[in-house]
């Protein structure tokens, strides 16, 4: 099943220090957000949005469309402003776009035999590839592209297997194009 997930971020302007823990009550009452790890977390099931507020004040919203994510950052900001007074935030920006699709391919097209042989020799001859992930980063820039293959239905011994291909890139265009190219390449090789 195809899926696109946008991650929209909104950061406090420089010099702004926000103590999110101070407003934990308001976050729960108004947004149903709960402290979790280094952030507050909540899910809006009506809009299909996952929200996080990090302890440094950053707001992050994930969802299948860009505009509802941006609108949600505004809603969160309103609650923060109501609880903390006037605070200054940057405009929302799309941090990355994640594309997911199901493909079928020979696993040998993703993992070279040489690597698989090493792992089998060191670990077990019966072991097989589960998930694969690659990360790429532009020199001296924060832009990153991650390509991963998840193998949800693991079947021993099969060569042509269903995989979930996931591409995370800074824009919709880049991630969509990379996903399409990889799928075409792998499916052609398999045929």
């Amino acid at each position: 099943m195809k899926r696109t997930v946008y991650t929209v971020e909104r950061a406090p302007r420089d010099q702004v220090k926000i103590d999110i823990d101070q407003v934990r009550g308001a976050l729960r009452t108004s947004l149903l957000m709960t402290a979790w790890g280094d952030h507050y977390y909540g899910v809006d099931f009506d809009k299909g949005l996952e929200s996080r507020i990090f302890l440094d004040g950053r707001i992050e919203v994930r969802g299948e469309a860009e505009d509802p994510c941006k609108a949600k950052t505004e809603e969160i900001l309103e609650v923060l402003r109501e609880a903390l007074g006037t605070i200054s935030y940057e405009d929302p920006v799309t941090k990355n776009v994640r594309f997911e699709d199901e493909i079928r391919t020979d696993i040998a097209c993703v993992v070279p035999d040489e690597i698989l042989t090493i792992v089998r020799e060191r670990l077990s001859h019966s072991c097989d590839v589960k998930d694969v992930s690659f990360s790429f980063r532009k020199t001296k820039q924060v832009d990153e592209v991650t390509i991963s293959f998840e193998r949800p239905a693991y079947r021993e011994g099969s060569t042509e297997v269903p995989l979930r291909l996931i591409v995370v890139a800074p824009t919709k265009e880049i991630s969509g194009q990379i996903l399409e190219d990889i799928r075409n390449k792998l499916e052609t090789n398999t045929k």
Partner: protein
Amino acid sequence: MKPTQSDGQLADESSFLHGVQDYLERKQTTKLTEELVESGKELTTAFVSLQRLDPSVADQYAERLLSCQRRTENMLNQLKTSIDVNRWLFSLHDQILALFLAVYSAYECFHKTILERILYAYFRKHNLVSEHFMLPEPFQELARPMSIEEALGTETKTVHSCYEFPVILRFLLTSSEPMTELYRIATKLSTIEESKQRAAAFADNLIHSTVIRNRIAHMSERASYYSAEEPTVRRNLQELAALLPLVLETLVDLFLFFSKLLEEAGLQIGTRKRPGKVGLLECIYGRLGKGDLREVDDVRRLVALAISKLRDRPETPNEQLFVS
């Protein structure tokens, strides 16, 4: 009496429930419960083979975890097939609440019977106890020199007992090199620094899971929590559904990490406690320890004598047990 809804409201609820189902599936909730069952089984099997857990108790624990898995599957099946939204919203709220209570009850069993004992054995093997802080029950026999509050620099605040285990774990994971290294191996991370960071986040999540447990326990004791008012039910369901995968993931990580910790804890095959006076005296004997004080050695000798007498002649009167 449940409120009636217009068609528009029903459509809203249907989309809401679909959102819940989609989220739980995306977060692989079913797979998480399977992993919970498997990782829990690994721990109980190890404890049974060490003769530290009765096989029948191990079966009970396995059944508790399986019940969490079945409840999750049932809930997801209902979400897939729900037609009468007016009915399912309430039913799902009850189900997810019961599921949380089942998950936490399983955690409680493992925590008290298995996890604390592994941690305790690890402390003893690596002499970590007296270096760091005073421990709660059942670790007090090696108590010294700092309390948790002192160690964390929060002397004025008291750490509630249910937070002691995760707080101790966090402190150790971030301050003890061997423990951080072990976490690195268990989670297949490449650097110690990364391991320290991830271990702290893992322990924080365990603390947050405890906060959620306490909140649910507190809220679910209030009559208003069971209000038939739709917004209340919806709100509770939304909060619980959002947190379920996070809590499950933390417990799976906890069990997997403790399986690794068990390998390093050096737990020996346990001796089953005997019932009655002999069992009691053996327990006292085991706790006396060998010290520099001659008085302790004298007491040990006398207790050993009493055990020997009871083994030979169980009917020996109390007044003759400690007489040479």
